[in-house]
């Protein structure tokens, strides 16, 4: 297990990544961690009691470029339980790049095969800072241009680093 630390302006979240069950997803995620991609990104989509999604935008809803995608490992047996980390994507099954989400409720319908035959690949779980996740889950949200469910006050991911 690799442990990462997500430092946010709401507090710290520690998560374990399961490279045994989600090897490609973890490798891809660590690629973006080591590039510093996540520094000063935000949790830009917060839907209370569903999930908090981040890692793709900077403050002001400026989207960050990504340069690689990963095969969907949704079939790996890991479930979208509360406080697990999974990859966000477009409707294309293998389109996940850097954006991830933390489930703030058990979301069985996201598990393989989901709605589209693929589901959402879980690759880790929060082991410390669940209270920080809860706090983000409860922030006020509004619309920002094309985007709905954007926190009114930015929830900033200052950095993500490997700690162990």
């Amino acid at each position, binding site marked *: 297990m690799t442990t990462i630390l997500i430092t946010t302006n709401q507090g710290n979240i520690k998560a374990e990544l399961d490279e045994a069950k989600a090897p490609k997803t973890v490798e891809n995620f660590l690629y973006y961690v080591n590039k510093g991609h996540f520094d000063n990104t935000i949790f830009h989509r917060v839907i209370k009691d569903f999930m908090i*999604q981040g890692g793709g935008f900077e403050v002001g809803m400026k989207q960050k470029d990504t340069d690689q995608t990963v095969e969907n490992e949704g079939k790996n047996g890991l479930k979208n339980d509360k406080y697990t980390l999974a990859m966000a994507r477009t409707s294309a099954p293998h389109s996940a790049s850097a*954006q991830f989400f933390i489930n703030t409720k058990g979301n069985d319908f*996201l598990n393989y095969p989901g709605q589209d035959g693929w589901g959402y690949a879980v690759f880790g779980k929060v082991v410390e800072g669940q209270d920080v996740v809860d706090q983000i889950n409860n922030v006020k949200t509004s619309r920002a241009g*094309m985007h709905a469910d954007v926190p009114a006050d930015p929830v900033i991911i200052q950095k993500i680093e490997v700690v162990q």
Partner: protein
Amino acid sequence: MTTPTRMLALFISDLHLQASHPRTADAFFRFLDEQAPRAGALYLLGDIFEYWAGDDDLETPFNAAIAAALRGLGERGVAVYWMAGNRDFLVGPGFAQAAGLTLLADPHVASFGGHQVVLAHGDAQCTGDIKYMAFRAQVRDPDWQTQFLAMPLVQRKAIIAGLREGSRSAHAEKSYEIMDVAADAVAALHAQADTIIHGHTHRPALHRQGSLRRFVLPDWELDEEPRRGGWIAIDADGDITRHDLDGTPL
């Protein structure tokens, strides 16, 4: 990126889009921009267009704008499904490709978070209207369609204009009951799933009978009084909600 989403699908029907009703079209564009991107899928359950003369009519700017807007929604990650109505049954693969959507048969059983729902336009269930059912059988016949689509576009449009005029005067003569879905036809749909969503009748409602539910979609009209419209949504828990045009749950 709009996924993952708890709102699994939205359903609309009976917009009767036409260039002469610009406010209704604007409401549709606004819906595609603001509401639909929050869902995993959008189901268009018939009579989205007031009429459809054939996929070669895509060159009309109004039709092209609708197709482009639907394509844009697909590009934002929302799966778009289309079921023909009694007015736009000539929509074919050309439009489907231009709009980036998937054509569905009527009826169609879909599964949302494990909950089965039967989707239909609703005209096939109006079995009390014998004249209409005969007309429907004729125009849904592949040979009839091939022959019709072989005519020049202007000629097809002229024929459709005549049919619409005839339909208006025929409606005035038919009773309220005859133009609603028939109980036995509804029962046949319920045999496939406890929940039905359909449009066509312009009589928005939720009908309950024990564990059986039948949701009827509203028609949209923003250019004439009374102004109306709305949609139905289903979420990951299988909860189905009805919404008016500004999104307020009913």
